[in-house]
């Protein structure tokens, strides 16, 4: 099979290596180095998609990142990617791609009927059409819009590929490897700077790959190749291709996505597909180049209408002809390079130049080569549906308003050039203002906001000589500031053709009686008439016009359309372009995959997993784990066929009857030391701390300054100036920051130090009526009697040769102890407890039984201390000292906090003593009342009371104090349950607290 549009002699691709691929199910081949676009064009395929709104046929328009049309769905190694630009996707063996936005096929697309119904699809049609009736939204409009919107479909499968993040620092980060990027990188690197040079494309060199210039005595391309080779060999330089710097953030942080294996059939096992670089640069050089913009004319979206620069790139880089009978339509000199390139390949183009009598070196050359050039001529409209077949051309009057002598000429492609638009996205993202330059009819960056500079055509400089001189100079100056070295290179001699001025002409008028669609935005089907309509309807701000018409939106972000859109608005509004302004440039410059953003922080790696030293014992003994913040804790230990309910009930019952052991390593622990520790605790906690003796623990509650309970826990005085504080698992980190804030900022005069010791201690809670007997067995040398170790007592003891701390504290409400040993001895301690506990019917219990025990005791935890409750609400008001001041005390005087019917914690029992009440249920008087029903309170925690053998819940209830004995309803609309309940005391078991002291 021959490729009739492939040139034999030109191109940078490897014609010795054929690559086969499939497009829309049909097999083709291309060569190594092709993009999907160049390979398709070589095969004569131009119809690649359908447009967004009208489903008009779409071909190729550009040759790279500017491509608005050729968006395909890519299939690779069992995965699929939407939104892939065919002009950027490199060919690999076995590549498969499909057109999007068409059904049933790109050749016969039913949606194309929209093209004939287009009077119903004007600008803002979403807003106009889908408003009424309101009831249509969910079932009809929204599904329709979802189906119609967007290109392609995201995969619903788990992405098997790997993605990485990398952090890097450098002196100079250079975005783009065109002439200005290469020159500044080289000058800076030779002057000792650490340089990162990033190129989005696979090939380095930017415009040097396709322009006809020489630098020194080399061609532009050879010069670029040599510089890159030298830079790659330098230790202070990182050179990256296929790497897009897409975002410029504060303090010179830039983000780059590197495509590592997207151009290969599959990633090998250990190679990531993409890598996201977070780069902090001392200086940034923006050498992102410029993009050619089109001239607007009738049916300018027909496949076969391409940018002149793209046509040249297809020939020079890929050895591919976009057509064999080209018309070149331009308002400037640069398109003549395309014409000459065609001619060199024995193709005869016709050049239509809107200028009347331009004079320049390159025009002379074109004429001398025998190229047909028509001055003061324009393309009026392209003809042909799925491919350009001919075009109407005309002479244009000097004022550019009248078309004279419209004639039709045959052609198979129209290469259009409306001059160049600097790519200023990065500079704008950095916060720099922009300025409009009349000479080039485009915006360039104004004064730099961060440490950055824009060079070359991105800065509106279109001559190579000036670009190289400035870039060598700036590379030297910027590096000198950083490295203090003084190695200055001379800018090489350049030979290039001088260019004449471009014509300020961007839109061909409509001939009388014709209403051709003239597209501004090709990706979103925004035509001149849509903008005119939006302005007639009163939209003025360019940001509003953009959103109403979708001009400049979606994946190409208006790279080829924005400026022409602004020209149109400025013409209709009779304002100059800078007064119209432009829309904001936001990152990312090109779409970035979610995979690259997430990196390796996926699944289990999305957060750290903390495990107690006893974790492997729990695993071996059938623990079912639950996430507690970042900790993994045993929820219950499964026996036989038990579920959560049976197992936790068994475990809790055993604590009430015999003895249980629970891993409490996760509790936050903070070591408090210093001579003012007692005073500090006295300010932090609501109760009195000055008189706590050494060897005693105390329960404490701490508030935020707004009076809301922050955390609770016990703190033990280990020695005169040394305390061991415990916090809840969830609040451990916040409490430490809170203490540090008060010690460093509010009361720096206090001599106190705090440090987290959570990970230094392993903890086991031993609870139940037989716990003292068990304790005595594991500490045979220590007197643990009620006298020697009373409730809230503390001892240091010897656990079979290991140093241990025993705290007599209780969360379960039973006689209970907490034993702490150094973490490394945690498993030893645990096994000793299990081994010696057999005699007492000891069973380990998990967090579910732990909750049951504390709920039926009425002990509060995170579900009650939820950041909205004050001490009174949770029954902790007895712990408020009247005598001293503490953090948050003043807030407790607030009127709302002292209302007599203030919410308060209560117990709740279902009247049938059978139906468990879902947590989060609302308590109401009358479940049949009209919605919204007045809510009196909510269920904060529920359990199956093992003591009473019926469901029991805690609730925070308005006027809870006076509601004991009332009958209410617990409503859970989520679970569709309404349960009649009785309000009881929150202390459902052992209300006098005798067991803990027994």
């Amino acid at each position: 099979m021959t490729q009739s549009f492939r040139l034999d002699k030109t191109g940078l691709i490897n014609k010795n290596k054929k690559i086969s691929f499939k497009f829309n199910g049909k097999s083709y081949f291309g060569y190594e180095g092709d993009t999907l676009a160049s390979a398709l064009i070589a095969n004569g395929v131009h119809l690649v998609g359908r447009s967004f709104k009208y489903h008009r046929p779409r071909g190729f328009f550009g040759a790279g990142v500017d491509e608005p049309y050729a968006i395909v769905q890519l299939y690779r190694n069992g995965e699929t990617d939407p939104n892939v630009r065919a002009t950027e996707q490199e060919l690999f063996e076995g590549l498969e791609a499909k057109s999007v936005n068409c059904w049933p096929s790109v050749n016969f697309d039913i949606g194309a009927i929209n093209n004939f119904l287009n009077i119903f699809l004007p600008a803002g049609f979403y807003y106009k059409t889908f408003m009424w009736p309101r009831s249509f939204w969910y079932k009809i409009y929204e599904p329709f819009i979802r189906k119609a919107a967007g290109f392609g479909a995201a995969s619903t499968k788990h992405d098997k590929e790997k993605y990485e993040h990398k952090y890097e620092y450098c002196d100079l980060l250079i975005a783009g490897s065109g002439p200005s990027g290469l020159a500044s990188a080289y000058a800076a690197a030779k002057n000792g700077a650490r340089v990162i040079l990033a190129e989005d494309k696979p090939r380095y060199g930017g415009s040097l790959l396709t322009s006809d210039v020489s630098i020194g005595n080399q061609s532009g391309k050879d010069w670029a190749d040599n510089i890159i080779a030298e830079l790659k060999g330098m230790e202070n330089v990182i050179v990256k291709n296929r790497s897009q710097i897409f975002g410029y953030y504060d303090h010179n942080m830039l983000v780059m996505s590197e495509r590592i294996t997207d151009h290969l059939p599959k990633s090998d096992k250990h190679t990531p597909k993409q890598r996201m670089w977070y780069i902090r640069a001392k200086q940034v050089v923006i050498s992102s180049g410029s993009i050619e913009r089109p001239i607007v004319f009738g049916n300018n979206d027909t496949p076969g209408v391409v940018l002149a620069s793209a046509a040249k790139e297809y020939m020079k880089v890929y050895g591919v002809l976009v057509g064999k009978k080209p018309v070149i339509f331009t308002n400037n000199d640069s398109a003549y390079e395309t014409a000459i390139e065609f001619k060199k390949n024995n193709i005869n183009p016709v050049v239509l130049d809107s200028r009347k009598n331009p004079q320049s070196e390159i025009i002379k050359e074109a004429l001398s080569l025998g190229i047909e050039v028509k001055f003061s001529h324009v393309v009026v409209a392209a003809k042909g549906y799925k491919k350009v077949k001919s075009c109407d051309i005309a002479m244009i009057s000097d004022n550019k308003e009248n078309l004279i002598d419209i004639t039709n000429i045959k052609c198979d492609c129209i290469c259009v050039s409306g001059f160049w638009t600097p790519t200023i996205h990065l500079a704008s993202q950095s916060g720099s203002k922009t300025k409009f330059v009349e000479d080039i009819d485009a915006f360039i960056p104004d004064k730099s906001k961060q440490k950055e500079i824009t060079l070359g055509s991105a800065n509106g400089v279109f001559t190579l000589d000036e670009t190289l001189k400035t870039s060598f100079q700036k590379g030297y100056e910027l590096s000198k500031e950083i490295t203090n070295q003084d190695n200055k290179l001379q800018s090489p001699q350049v030979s290039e053709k001088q260019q004449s001025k471009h014509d300020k002409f961007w839109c061909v008028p409509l001939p009388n009686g014709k209403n051709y669609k003239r597209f501004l935005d090709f990706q979103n089907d925004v035509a001149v008439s849509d903008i005119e309509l939006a302005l007639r309807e009163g939209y003025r701000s360019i940001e509003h016009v953009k959103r109403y018409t979708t001009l400049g939106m979606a994946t190409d972000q208006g790279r080829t359309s924005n400026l022409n859109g602004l020209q149109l608005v400025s013409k209709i509004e009779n304002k100059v372009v800078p007064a119209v302004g432009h829309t904001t440039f936001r990152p990312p410059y090109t779409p970035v995959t979610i995979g690259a953003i997430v990196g390796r922080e996926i699944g289990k790696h999305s957060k750290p997993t903390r495990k107690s030293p006893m974790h492997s014992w729990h695993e071996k003994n059938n623990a079912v784990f639950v996430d507690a913040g970042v900790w993994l804790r045993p929820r219950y230990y499964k026996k036989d066929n038990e579920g959560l309910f049976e197992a936790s009930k068994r475990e809790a019952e055993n604590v009430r009857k015999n003895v249980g052991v629970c891993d409490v390593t996760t509790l936050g622990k903070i070591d408090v030391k210093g001579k003012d520790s007692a005073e500090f605790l006295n300010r932090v906690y609501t109760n009195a701390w000055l008189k706590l003796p050494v060897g005693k623990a105390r329960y404490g509650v701490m508030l935020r300054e707004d009076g809301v309970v922050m955390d609770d826990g016990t703190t033990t005085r280990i020695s005169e100036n040394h305390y061991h504080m415990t916090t809840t698992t969830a609040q451990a980190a916040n409490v430490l920051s809170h203490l540090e804030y008060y010690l460093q900022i509010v009361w720096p005069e206090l001599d106190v130090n705090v440090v987290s010791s959570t990970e230094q201690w392993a903890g086991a809670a031993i609870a139940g009526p037989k716990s003292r007997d068990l304790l005595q067995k594991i500490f045979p040398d220590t007197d643990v009697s009620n006298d020697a170790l009373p409730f809230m007592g503390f001892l240091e003891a010897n656990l079979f040769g290991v140093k241990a701390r025993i705290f007599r504290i209780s969360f379960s409400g039973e006689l209970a102890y907490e034993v702490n040993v150094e973490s490394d001895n945690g498993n030893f301690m645990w096994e000793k407890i299990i081994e010696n506990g057999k005699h007492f019917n000891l069973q380990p219990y998990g967090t579910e039984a732990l909750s049951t025990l504390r709920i039926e005791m009425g002990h509060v935890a995170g579900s009650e201390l939820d950041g909205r409750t004050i001490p009174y609400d949770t029954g902790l008001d007895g712990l408020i000292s009247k005598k001293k001041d503490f953090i948050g005390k003043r807030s407790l005087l607030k009127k709302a906090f002292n209302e007599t019917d203030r919410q308060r914690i209560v117990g709740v029992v279902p009247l049938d003593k059978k139906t468990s009440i879902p947590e989060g249920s609302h308590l109401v008087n009358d479940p049949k009342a009209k919605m919204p029903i007045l809510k009196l309170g909510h269920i904060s925690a529920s359990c199956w009371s093992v003591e009473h053998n019926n469901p029991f819940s805690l609730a925070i209830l308005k006027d809870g104090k006076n509601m004991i004995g009332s009958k209410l309803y617990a409503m859970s609309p989520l679970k569709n349950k309404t349960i009649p309940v009785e309000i009881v005391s929150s202390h459902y078991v052992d209300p006098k607290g005798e067991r803990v002291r027994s």
Partner: protein
Amino acid sequence: MLYIKCPYCGYRSQNEFAYGGDATIKRPELNKEVTDKEWDNFVYLRKSPRGKHLELWHHVSGCRQWIKVLRDTNTHEIFNTYKSEDKVET
């Protein structure tokens, strides 16, 4: 992402820090009578200036020191950073 110079550790990325709000707020002294208004001003009311702002940052994933940062809330420019005990004229 901001680049913050911790007076103890040097330049570190913002993700090592937690924001701590206005550094000029002074907590009323303990055991001193304060009016409702004074207390509410301390607990709830903060200025949200456009421009220079002296604020606290906590180097949580570093040295765990609370530091003061003089930052422009509009441009994010950081003019200087200080230890918590340093007196700063704003």
